[in-house]
C-alpha cells in the first residue's frame, strides 16, 4: 500500500483522511501490523512543547520621523540584536535583562504575542540619512510591521536524561538536579515527538508545513547542531540528541498558550515552543516508524555532576514516564522538562485541522542532508 502526498491531500480535501495522533497509532500498533496501519491510517500528528533555547523573533518596528539606524536597543531593558538593517531587530529568547536574570528575551516575545506594550529604547551615532540619535517609545503587536519567529534549533530528536552524582544540588538547563542522583530529568515527548516518528526524515524536510506556537509555520532549514551520525537502537531511533529543526512562522498570529517564557534557576531564560508536525503514512515502512512506542525509544543517562557529562547508563521513555527509574538498585524520581499535556493538545489540534480539511500536508521542497556529524570547538593559537 503506497500513497503519495498528493493522494493524501486529496483525501484531506474531501474530508476522508484518517488522522490519528502518534500516541493513538502507537497503541494501535500493539495489535495491528505495519501493513494494516498503512492501509487504515493516512496521517499521524506528532507534537512537542519543551524549552528550546535556540529561539527568537525578528521584528521591524517601522521608521520614526526623523529616522534612526538603531545601533544599541533594548525592549523592557533586555538587549536585542541590532546588527541588521536600521529598524530590524532580533530578540534572542535567552537574552537576559542585565539586572534581572529571571527576565529576558522570551518574556518580551511572549508579551508581544499576547498583545502587550513593550518599552523600546534605542541609540545610534546619527548619520546623514538616519539623523536621530535616541528614541524611547512603546511598541506592541499592532503598531509594528512584522514579527516573525525564527528559531535556529528546535525539536531535538531525542535528548539525554540528566542526573547529578555530586554532593551538591546543580541548577542546570535540565532543571534542579538533586545531589547523589536524587532525581532524573528528561526532555522529550517520547512517542509523540516529531523526529522520533520519522527518524530518517523521509517526510520531514525544508518547507514542511507545521503547527508553530498556535499558528501555521514552516520548517525553514535543518536546525543547528544537526547530526545524523548518532548511534541508533534496534528500532532505528537515535539514542542521543541527533537531528534538529530550524522553524519559521508569523508570530503575530501565535498564541501565548503555545509560546511560554521560562527561567531555569542559575541557568537563565529559555522559551517553551509548541511544535506539531503531521507525518503522512506513505507506505508500510512509514507505518512501522509512526507505530513506535515509548518503551522502544532508548535514551542515555548523563551525569551533570561532572562537567564532562559522562554516560552512566541507558533507559527508555516508558520507564521515564512512569515517574521513577531504577538505576544501580536505586529508585530515582523522574520528571519531564517538556509538557506532554501541552504536546497532546497540539497533536489533537493538528488532528482536528487535518480532519476538517483546513491543514494540508506539504511535501518537502528539499530533503535534509545525510551523513552530517558535529564538530567541537578546538582552542587554536
Amino acid at each position: 500500500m503506497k500513497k503519495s502526498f498528493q493522494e493524501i491531500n486529496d483525501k484531506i480535501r474531501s474530508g476522508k483522511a484518517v488522522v490519528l495522533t502518534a500516541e493513538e497509532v502507537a497503541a494501535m500498533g500493539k495489535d495491528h501490523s505495519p501493513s494494516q496501519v498503512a492501509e487504515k491510517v493516512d496521517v499521524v500528528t506528532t507534537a512537542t512543547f519543551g524549552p528550546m533555547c535556540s529561539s527568537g523573533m525578528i521584528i521591524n518596528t517601522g521608521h520614526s520621523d526623523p529616522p534612526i539606524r538603531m545601533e544599541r536597543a533594548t525592549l523592557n531593558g533586555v538587549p536585542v540584536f541590532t546588527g541588521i538593517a536600521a529598524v530590524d531587530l532580533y530578540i534572542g529568547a535567552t537574552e537576559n535583562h542585565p539586572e534581572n536574570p529571571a527576565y529576558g528575551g522570551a518574556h518580551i516575545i511572549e508579551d508581544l504575542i499576547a498583545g502587550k506594550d513593550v518599552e523600546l529604547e534605542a541609540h545610534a551615532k546619527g548619520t546623514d540619512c538616519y539623523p536621530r540619535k535616541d528614541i524611547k517609545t512603546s511598541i506592541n503587536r499592532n503598531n509594528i510591521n512584522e514579527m516573525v519567529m525564527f528559531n535556529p534549533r528546535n525539536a531535538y530528536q531525542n535528548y539525554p536524561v540528566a542526573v547529578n552524582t555530586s554532593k551538591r544540588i546543580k541548577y542546570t538547563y535540565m532543571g534542579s538536579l538533586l545531589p547523589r542522583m536524587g532525581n532524573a530529568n528528561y526532555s522529550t515527548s517520547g512517542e509523540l515527538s516529531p523526529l522520533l516518528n520519522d527518524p530518517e526524515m523521509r517526510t520531514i524536510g525544508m518547507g514542511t508545513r507545521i503547527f508553530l506556537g498556535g499558528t501555521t509555520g514552516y520548517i525553514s532549514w535543518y536546525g543547528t547542531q544537526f547530526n545524523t551520525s548518532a548511534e541508533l537502537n534496534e528500532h532505528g531511533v537515535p539514542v542521543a540528541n541527533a537531528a534538529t529543526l530550524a522553524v519559521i512562522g508569523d508570530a503575530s498570529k501565535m498564541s501565548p498558550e503555545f509560546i511560554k517564557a521560562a527561567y531555569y534557576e542559575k541557568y537563565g531564560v529559555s522559551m517553551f515552543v509548541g511544535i506539531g508536525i503531521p507525518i503522512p503514512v506513505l507506505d508500510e515502512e512509514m507505518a512501522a516508524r509512526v507505530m513506535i512506542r515509548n518503551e522502544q525509544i532508548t535514551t542515555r543517562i548523563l551525569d551533570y555532576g561532572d562537567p564532562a557529562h559522562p554516560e552512566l547508563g541507558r533507559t527508555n521513555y516508558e520507564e521515564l514516564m512512569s515517574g521513577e527509574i531504577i538505576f544501580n538498585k536505586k529508585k530515582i524520581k523522574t520528571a519531564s522538562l517538556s509538557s506532554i499535556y501541552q504536546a497532546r493538545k497540539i497533536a489533537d489540534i493538528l488532528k482536528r485541522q487535518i480532519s476538517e480539511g483546513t491543514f494540508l500536508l506539504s511535501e518537502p521542497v528539499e530533503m535534509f542532508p545525510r551523513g552530517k556529524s558535529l564538530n567541537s570547538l578546538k582552542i587554536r593559537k
Partner: protein
Amino acid sequence: MAFKKQRMVLQFPAGTVDEPITYTLIKEYDVMINILNADISHGREGSLLVEISGEQESVEVARKYLKSKSVKISPVVKTILFEQAECINCGVCSSVCYPGALEMDRESRELHFFPEKCVACELCIKACPLQLFELNFGAN
C-alpha cells in the same frame, strides 16, 4: 506517652535573636527540631519555620519555654502558594518534591498539588520554570 509532631513558625523578638533558643530546646527539653526555613538577622526580628517533634509532654513544655522567651508561636496553615491556573503541566517540579505534594498524573499528564503533604522545603520554587510557586512564610 504519645509522640507529637507540630509544624510552626517561631517569631523571635529583636532581643532574643542572639540567644541560643533552638539549642536550649533540643538540649533541655529533648525535642527534635527540623528547621525548614530561617530568616534571622542579628539585632532584628527573626522567624523560623520548624517542625518540632517529641513526646507530647516535652513538646508542651518546650512551647511554654518559647512563650517565656516571648517567642510568638504560630501553627503553619499554608506554606507554599501555587499559581496553578498558569501551570503548563511540564511537571519538572515533581522530581524534587520528596513528600509527594507535587505529583504527575501518569495518564492525564497533569500536575496535582497536595498542600497537606507539603513540608515547605522550597525546592519547587527554584525548580518551576514559570516561577509559579511562592513561599507564604506567615501563619494564621
